[in-house]
């Protein structure tokens, strides 16, 4: 799942780089900021996705009957 997300990101990010020559008038600081903005946006999505997944997981963990893991013959 993580690999898939990263692959999608790589594809999207590569698309940004194909455009890179069009931004050649930007100085390195500005381009870095643009890239940081894009990377930050993706990281936010990944982070949100992860925390959402954690919430779903913890919901199911909570809804398990207490002591269900301790069941021993």
């Amino acid at each position: 799942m993580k690999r898939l997300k990263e692959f999608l990101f790589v594809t999207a990010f590569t698309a940004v780089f194909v455009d890179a020559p069009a931004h050649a008038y930007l100085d390195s600081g500005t381009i870095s900021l643009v890239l940081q903005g894009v990377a930050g946006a993706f990281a936010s999505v990944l982070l949100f996705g992860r925390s959402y997944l954690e919430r779903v997981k913890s919901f199911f963990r909570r809804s398990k009957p207490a002591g269900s893991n301790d069941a021993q013959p």
Partner: protein
Amino acid sequence: MKIDPGSFRDPSGRILRSGGRIFRAVYPHGAKFYGAARDSGVLAHAVERGRLLPLEEIEVGTITDSGPAPAYLLEHPCLDFVSYPYEWTFSALKAAALLQLDFHIELLADGFSLSDATAYNVQFIGTRPVFIDHLSVVPYDPAAGWAGQRQFAMQYLGPLLLWSKRGIAPNGWFRGSLEGIAPEELAPLLRWRDKLSFNVLAHILGPAAVHRSQLKRKIGEAPPAPRQLPKARLEAMLKSLRSFVAGLAYPGGKTVWDDYADCNSYDSERRIAKHAFVARHVEAIAPRLLFDVGCNSGDFSQAALAAGAKSVVGFDFDFGALERAFSRFSASNARVLPLWLDATNPSPSQGWAGRERLGLAERSGADMLLALALIHHLAIAKNVPLDMAVDWLMSLAPSGIIEFPSKGDPMVQELLRARPDIFPDYSEEAFLAHVAERGAIVEQTWLGEGGRLIVAYRRG
């Protein structure tokens, strides 16, 4: 009063040394940001959490230097030893990288940021990293984004990737290129599968592509439109990077000395005798700082601590052994810092004017030396004449212990097996004479019957 030669790049302030004390002059240029950080409580909070080296404001004018009149004068506790990232183990570099990111993430929550990301702003107390540049803490400015991104990539992420993904220790490269490994230099060395990662793309491949495109840029083109990086995006980026760095692992593989503890030529009786000898002399000297040169995984660093040494810096050239030492002293939270050293080529004084990063000899300050099972590697494996080997070892500390395995020793035999014996002067008599020429032999003994000669010296 001496100005620290490594503290000149930031006009906000400077480190000053006087009478064994460490001060920081905060100049008017940095006064506003320092004042804001202090008043907000972020500095005190970071000190409490052990992230930041403690500071105390003292009266301006206590000491003076040639710079502008300082707005504030701070005093910091003295570190046991100043080390540089090219001397660190994988785990040390990773711990420093995580500290840099954790500290930055915590600061962002309070509206502050770090103005750079240089690994030289981190030092170690034992195996615990601590941030030492208080003037890097500045209010967050969306127009600045993450100003330290390239530095982080060059000094932390790049070297860690090279180590973890390609199994290449970056220390030699890092030492030759003090600013680290540039993304555009690292990118061609990574495999496709290493590149298939958001963080590698965002912090190595992306910036490397920008760098390449910049080389094609024409001078005098229209100024760029101002850009901003929202704080939440930087936070998310740093958190993602933190999780990526935390997942990087030291590459496996057997090391030269992996099984040394089990396969060395020592039986337990001789080992006990060696421990007792070390403990007795460390106890007598009670060193503030002890150098354990050839420390392996740190058995005798541990013995020295137990015998009363306040802190130890262990040196070895085997990264696997150093990793084990780092993990051992990290688990016990002991004041031992394992560092990488090629004894035949110690860190030199280098950087700006050859003084920015000091050589090992100039940073030493050790009160005591342990050089156990080391000298035959210098004298026989590396052809260093015995008198020069003794000279260098005794120059490291005013007192210490040197072990001398003679030619009959199985470990020396092993070294001599693949080469002719061109070392007629390598003998116990010659060794004792060289030590006696340079100081007093406090005690000499043989570790068990037919065992190695071990000597405690005090320099003359």
